[in-house]
């Protein structure tokens, strides 16, 4: 058996094309091309410098240890290569090197000027088994990508299938997609809430096959390996972003946190969780506005957290005072430099990209950010504590990174924590959770890590196949506010105990507070205890669903000045899982309703 040089899939000696990725075997760049004597990477015939380590090809390198990449130029001691893949299958990768011998020290300046991203040439060496997916024909991209993992070139038409076949065969440690969605498609599914035309996601690029709707709603919705996307075909920018690996800013100083005023409660709870030892003061918009935020970001924004509005119509995020004022807080032009920054945004459409249009997410990446996490569609979350859905994605991301996880692992761990907490109910996912698990994507390398933080065993626990309790503790565990801790405890203990704890919490809170805080499953008949029009709601849900559901999920929130609740239920049918959701006011009067296909 031989290995495909692109995707590592096992191929028979007589194969002309790789079954997994379709690459012609024996192509230029496979068997006959110059192999770097320093790191073992195969190069193109006309390469002068190694695309793996930057060494001049043909230069002798002495004492390269077995199973470990020799480094042709000085590299930080912390970046010692860890090559565990059999040498016969995968060429060992060196780190810190760059095509054309440039090295990270010669990184191009950020697109928007200012200083070059700091942090030096730290490159994660566990990128050996990272599958870096590049649009076919982008030779320079492939050259750069080859420094950071095993390159799989794909055509847009069958990109997803090619990647999934490759994952099934070679089991990479992570998948890094290169290119914007119009270069490398971001697959989507129908939106069960009916609010968006679809739910674009990169999750499926980390799976061996695309799950059906039924499968997603019973929990097969998360990637099996961490996935990240570098949404550019600019080779210099790709090199810059991937070079941020192991160099993400380690602290909240500098850092900023911006919230819509009306969501202050939820944002404060999140901030308590992600910056427990003193983080930035929460900037509330209004009164704060884009000028204040731009000034605070300055030349070194560090860590950033945004809980503001976003739209898919204009590249801007806005605040909200609950009384009709929506001041702009961020536009792409405000992002000048964001060296090694970590950006987490709960803004709706925070990660949506449109061809030919600027985006805040890509402005951060162009400015040097190493990690951007946001939603491709409406981001679902509460206006008040306790944190849920989008909030917990942010909490999990930062907690995971600070535990030593990579950005891809941390995002995945956060999603797993949400999923596992929901699975304890034994019911299909709510449409809002379904969308949250799909729509939050990582822009940046999936291997990006915080500078100076050692890997922890927790990182492994949060990975697919890890124990659910550990994943939960890692993502939303100890620390934070009383409510957060309570919620974390509720999520991590048995169901009967959960009920007891809920009742205790209920007893400690004023009825109004409990109403605002409660989010969870109820028996259908309990609707009458929650809403004045509960009886009608019961009938309405039964009518829409066709049967009486075992339970309903009630999600309370505030929209501007009015209270709202979303009541959703699901039921399995011979044709799939049917979902209904009704939006009601404080009295339970119906405002909107939708039913899944």
């Amino acid at each position: 058996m031989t290995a495909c040089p692109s995707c590592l899939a096992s191929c028979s000696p007589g194969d002309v094309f790789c079954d997994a990725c379709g690459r012609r075997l024996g192509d230029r760049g496979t068997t006959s091309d110059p192999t770097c004597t320093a790191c073992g990477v195969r190069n193109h015939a006309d390469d002068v410098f190694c695309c793996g380590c930057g060494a001049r090809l043909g230069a002798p390198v002495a004492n390269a240890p077995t199973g470990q990449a020799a480094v042709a130029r000085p590299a930080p001691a912390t970046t010692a290569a860890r090559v565990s893949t059999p040498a016969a299958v995968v060429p060992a990768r060196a780190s810190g090197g760059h095509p054309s011998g440039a090295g990270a020290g010669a990184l191009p300046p950020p697109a928007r000027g200012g200083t070059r991203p700091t942090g030096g040439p730290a490159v994660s060496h566990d990128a050996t088994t990272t599958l870096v997916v590049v649009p076919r024909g982008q030779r320079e991209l492939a050259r750069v990508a080859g420094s950071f993992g095993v390159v799989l070139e794909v055509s847009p038409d069958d990109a997803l299938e090619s990647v999934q076949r490759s994952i099934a065969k070679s089991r990479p440690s992570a998948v890094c997609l290169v290119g914007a969605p119009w270069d490398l498609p971001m697959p989507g599914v129908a939106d069960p809430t009916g609010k968006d035309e679809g739910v674009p996601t990169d999750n499926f690029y980390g799976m061996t096959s695309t799950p059906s709707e039924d499968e997603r709603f019973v929990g097969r919705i998360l990637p099996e390996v961490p996935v990240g996307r570098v949404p550019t075909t600019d080779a210099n920018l790709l090199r810059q972003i991937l070079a941020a690996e192991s160099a993400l800013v380690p602290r909240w100083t500098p850092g900023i946190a911006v919230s819509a005023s009306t969501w202050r409660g939820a944002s404060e709870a999140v901030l308590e969780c992600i910056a427990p030892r003193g983080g930035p003061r929460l900037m509330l918009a209004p009164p704060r506005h884009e000028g204040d935020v731009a000034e605070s970001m300055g030349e070194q924004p560090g860590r950033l957290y945004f809980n503001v509005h976003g739209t898919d119509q204009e590249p801007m995020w806005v605040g909200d005072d609950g009384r009709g004022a929506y001041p702009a807080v961020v536009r792409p032009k405000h992002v000048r430099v964001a060296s090694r920054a970590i950006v987490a945004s709960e803004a709706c459409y925070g990660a949506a990209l449109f061809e030919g249009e600027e985006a805040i997410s890509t402005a951060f990446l162009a400015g040097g950010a190493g990690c951007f996490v946001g939603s491709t569609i409406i981001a679902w979350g509460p206006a008040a504590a306790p944190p849920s859905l989008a909030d917990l994605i942010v909490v999990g991301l930062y907690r995971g990174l600070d535990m030593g996880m990579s950005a891809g692992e941390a995002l995945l761990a956060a999603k797993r924590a949400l999923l596992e907490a929901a699975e304890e109910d034994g019911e299909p996912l709510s449409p809002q959770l379904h969308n949250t698990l799909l729509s939050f994507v990582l822009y940046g390398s999936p291997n990006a890590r915080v500078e100076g933080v050692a890997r922890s065993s927790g990182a492994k626990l949060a990975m697919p196949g890890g124990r659910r309790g550990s994943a939960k503790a890692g993502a939303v565990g100890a620390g934070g506010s009383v409510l957060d801790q309570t919620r974390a405890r509720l999520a991590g203990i048995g169901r009967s105990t959960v009920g007891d704890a809920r009742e205790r919490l209920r007893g400690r809170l004023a009825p109004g507070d409990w109403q605002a805080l409660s989010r969870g499953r109820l028996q259908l008949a309990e609707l009458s205890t929650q809403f004045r029009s509960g009886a009608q709601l019961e009938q309405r849900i039964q009518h829409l669903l066709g049967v009486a559901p075992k339970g309903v999920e009630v999600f309370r929130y505030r929209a501007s000045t009015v209270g709202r609740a979303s009541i959703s239920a699901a039921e399995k049918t011979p044709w799939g899982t049917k979902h209904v959701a009704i939006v009601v006011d404080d009295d339970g009067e119906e405002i909107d309703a939708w039913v899944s296909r």
Partner: protein
Amino acid sequence: MPMGKPDGRSEIEGVIELRRVLVGTRSEHEAPVLVTRSESGDELVTRVHVLEDPPFEEPTLSRLVGARVRAAGTWRNGVLRVRPEDLVVVEGASTSSPAVEGAAGKGEEP
């Protein structure tokens, strides 16, 4: 009802009214929308965005509440996106409307 245009854009005529949009999400808010009513009384509500206007405030459309307008643009995620010059006031324009069509008394030039 939406009418297709040769350039792939859609054109809708209706009255600008304030309605709550994005109901069921935490972005629910009151916004000017384009309402078209059929003879049978059926109502078609279309979210419209004037390009480069602040999306949550829609100042151009807010000034046209109550006016009958014709809007031509392209769709994105259920929202008709129009350039200011493609928003034509047919009737009931305020003094600050972006474009006015028709005889005197049906509106004023901006």
